[in-house]
């Protein structure tokens, strides 16, 4: 049974409620198994999804609310996967949006079963992926990395980075620089000096 549980960890768990949902046909890149779960799809340790077709919502406007309430506070990420399968989406989508938003659910919209299935697959596949691909292409050369780090300090610009770099020679020297040394750098005013110094010398965690 331990092997089946590890297997299940790599699969999407699907509630028995979803039996017969044509969406299941479109989950192809990840394994899925039926299981006894509260949500419709269990996508990882802390993430789950409820599936809602807008057409169904029009017939049962309260359905979503009750399903969300069932989830209680057990999940970090609670996705409402909304299949926009009606012509006039504005009104039903407004209601779904409001319900999801006010009850701590993240709303994702798909316009086809393929698209909905892809969301489920992707969330499962990317469960432990870093956010690199949406953090923008960062150049990996020394200067841009240095820029990237130093410009987190407010008002420090690229020119200042050059000034700091040439004055102190290396990042560790910059980080260890005294207030006076920083103040001697051209173009770095009183405020920037203070900000830089605070950043480097104040403890990460403030004593409460």
């Amino acid at each position, binding site marked *: 049974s331990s092997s089946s549980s590890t297997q299940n960890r790599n699969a999407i768990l699907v509630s028995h409620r979803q039996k017969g949902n044509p969406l299941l046909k479109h989950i192809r890149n990840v394994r899925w198994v039926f299981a006894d779960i509260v949500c419709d799809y269990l996508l990882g340790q802390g993430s789950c999804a409820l599936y809602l077709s807008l057409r169904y919502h029009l017939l049962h406007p309260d359905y979503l609310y009750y399903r969300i309430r069932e989830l209680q506070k057990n999940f970090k990420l609670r996705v409402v996967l909304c299949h926009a399968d009606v012509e006039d989406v*504005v009104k039903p989508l*407004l209601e779904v*949006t409001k319900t999801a938003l006010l009850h701590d659910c993240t709303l994702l919209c798909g*316009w086809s079963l393929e698209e909905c299935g892809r969301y489920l697959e992707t*969330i499962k*596949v990317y469960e432990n992926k870093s956010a690199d691909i949406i953090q923008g292409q960062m150049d990996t050369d020394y200067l841009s990395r240095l820029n990237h780090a130093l410009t987190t300090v407010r008002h420090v610009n690229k020119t200042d980075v050059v000034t700091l770099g040439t004055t102190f020679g290396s990042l560790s020297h910059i*980080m260890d620089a005294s207030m006076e040394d920083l103040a001697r750098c051209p173009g770095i005013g009183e405020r920037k000096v203070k900000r830089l110094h605070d950043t480097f010398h104040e403890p990460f965690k403030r004593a409460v």
Partner: protein
Amino acid sequence: MVQFHEQIIAELIEEPPNGSGLVILSSGLSLPKLISSLLLLHSPSQGTLLLLYPSSPALKSQILHHHNHHNRISEISSELPAHQRLSLYSSGSVFFITARILIVDLLNSKIPTSAIAGLVILTAHSLSETSTEAFIVRIFRSLNRDAYVRAFSDKPHSMVSGFSKAERIMKCLCIRKLHLWPRFHVYVSQELEKEAPEVVDIRVPMAKHMVAIQKAILEVMDGCLKEMRKTNKVDVEDLTVENGLFKSFDEIVRRQLDPIWHTLGKKTKQLVFDLKTLRKLLDYLVRYDAVTYLKYLDTLRVSESYRSVWMFAESSYKIFELAKKRVYRFVASDGSKLTSPSKSSTSKKRKLKGTADDNENKKVGGSSSVNPNVSIVLDEVLEEAPKWKVLREVLEEIEEERQKQALSSEELVRDKEDDSGIVLVACKDERSCIQLEQCITNGPRKVMQQEWENYLLNKVQLRDLQTRFKKKPKEPKGFGILDGVVPVSPAKNVEPSSINKQEHDALVAAASEIKKRLKNENVGVDPQPEASGQGGGRGKQRVKNKKETPNNCKNSGNNDNKSSVKATLDGSSSENNDNEVDPAAAGGFSEATCHVASTDKVVLRRHVQVPEATASGSANKPIPPAYFYALESGQPILDILKPSVIIVYHPDMTFVREIEVHKAENPSKKVKVYFLFYEDSTEVQKFEASIRRENGAFESLIRQKSLMMIPVDQEANYLGLNSSVEAQGTSSQNSITRKAGGRKEVEKEMQVIVDMREFMSSLPNVLHQKGMRIIPVTLEVGDYILSPSICVERKSIQDLFMSFTSGRLYHQVEMMVRYYKIPVLLIEFSQDKSFSFQSATDIGDDVTPTNVISKLSLLVLHFPRLRIIWSRSLHATAEIFAALKANQDEPDEAKAMRVGVPSEEGIIDDDVRAENFNTSAVEFLRRLPGVNDSNYRAIMDGCKSLSELALLPVERLAELMGGQKAARTLREFLDAKYPTLL
């Protein structure tokens, strides 16, 4: 000032109650002049006059040009501090102002509205109910009922697109009166035709191949249109080839297809795109020379061959074939030089066709297989544009007439007062200007030669990049040609004499060029190799010139007469125009040879001209100096130069009207206009159709005007508009009655804090229409603050994709999550576009990191607290906002502004983490190489601050970071020597 301008202004101003109105006039009837005369009537005692910044800078600069002699119009922009703006608003002068700053100041009540005399909107056709201008007028009207709002447009055809557009625009501007001034208006036509300029209409027959190409393109277009009709997705009526000639055709098609764009197959989409390409091809056929045209076709073939539909049509083949024939062809070198379209040579052509595009393999095969039997030679055709010759003839004729006049009478001297003697050649774009200028100075042959050389060189470069290895097999052959064989040395002798201008440079450069030249010879000139027969002589010599091109390029700068022209041009234009024309504009019209624009130096100019013309050897008859003007540059050229002869090289309706107006303004002045049309070309068709289209637009506007229902009470109108929207809003809420009841109550107080930068979009306007109070401030975090806990970042679809790629969205969401309880990402779709991310076919079979689904999923995984709103349209967004605000407190302006902005001590208010963490240090730490989401907490636990971290040895780091590799990466980065600038 022309009389009908006076009439327009008189009618507009006298209109009760306050002279508001929408004026639509034909394009070319000089809107800038009309505006500037209107501005003259303004006196500071009336109050301040605000002109909304037009979207086209040309319009603004022309208004400034005409206004110039009096006081200048200053600008109010966001760069001015608030108090300065306030004093300007009450100063009583005229200002240009950007819509964004005006709406922000209005909403913040920073404008003394009673001190404003009126608003002038210059591009009425670009307005809609949701545009910022409409927003401005609505607020402005509610504060000041007496001021006027005057809107203008000289694009009648865009006033009739969509359902009763004019009426809707008038309603949203609270304007009751529509003034129509078409060219066929009786006052206008009377005045313009009274002293009409002398017009010579020259129909130039197109070259044989051009006609054939045109025919082929039209055939392909027709084919595409038929194909499109088959899809049953579009209204067939508008889809005619004639409409296809206009840019607006795309708009027609897109407007029909946009809502269902995601349901279209790839083929239909490609058809739409192809039609656009084909239209360009038609246009370029009459605008570009043969070589450039071929070049363009080549790039087309490379860039879209595998996708497009038309490329494979029967007629398309013809287009390529004919375009090539205009430039070069191959002949067998065994004597049958000109009469060689026998079977053998055509088959060769086929094979070599492969060469011309990028099939290098074919080329090698083709030429070598042909070689042993009969060697073939490239024969340059280099067809010149028929208009070139005609242009020269016209210029010669003008000069002849002038000289006759000068001989026959002394009267000329007196006439000079009116007759500036300036010849203006107007063509569509900068490129044609430069080319025509060279054509006149250097002769057409040379221009073509140069284009051809560039063309070949380009190909060489392309090949060099593509297939380096293929050079090798060719090299020995190339040496063979250059070394022993006869035709080489004569060619070398000819070379310097033919390009006599660069003699001395050529000799110097030749030595250094030889290597390059060889390479070029071997690789580049695809069809030219192995020419050993007598027929090769001609081809050889030409190709030699090609190698000169690098020199040519370099030397064109040194070329005395040219550089001097440039220099004097700048000087002269600034002298004449009181610095009105900026340097870029000065470059806009290039002179052939002359020095100054002022009349007294005409003689001098001619002296320069004559030897120049003969020296170039390209023409024997003298021609007058001419100015070249690109219509695209949008300068008030006629008023600057006051030309007496205008040659309209590319006919354009607007420019024709401008000439008419100019003539009517200066009735005593003699103006002669030559039109150069290609006979039976789409150029003529397009010109005529543009007039028809404008007339049609006016007729439809006149009809609309007679049926228009404009409420008398403007204020009621705008309130009514509001309440109707409200009613709609509540009715849609009726299903959940308890919420609707709650909402009604809050509505009175509802306010939304909006970031200043958001006023580029229409959402603030729509929110205001919905009855919400809009508070514009500069926000550091988020775009809209709905309540103390709800913060919204708005992204249109396009923005969304872009900010995913740039990483901006990640950062923005990160900030929102940090400061607000309910951070919201609003994904806003456009009303008239399809409501979906991508069509089903774009989804693909696998999870790919580039797909937007993947990116969005990742965002959701990393920020589980992020909420997402999917909104169909602006109005849907407004409704969702209202629904979300229903049970929330109103946001606090002062607080929202402080969010994310560190105070003096660097501590950020309301930052949930700031109390416990040194946030900028944490942020800094997380951006260091080797540090990641899983180990940064451990680092923070293990060392106190960044300065301590800087001193930790690598072993300790490894302990903290849980790995040698990461630790080493970090240590190396920290200790890396900063690269010095030396």
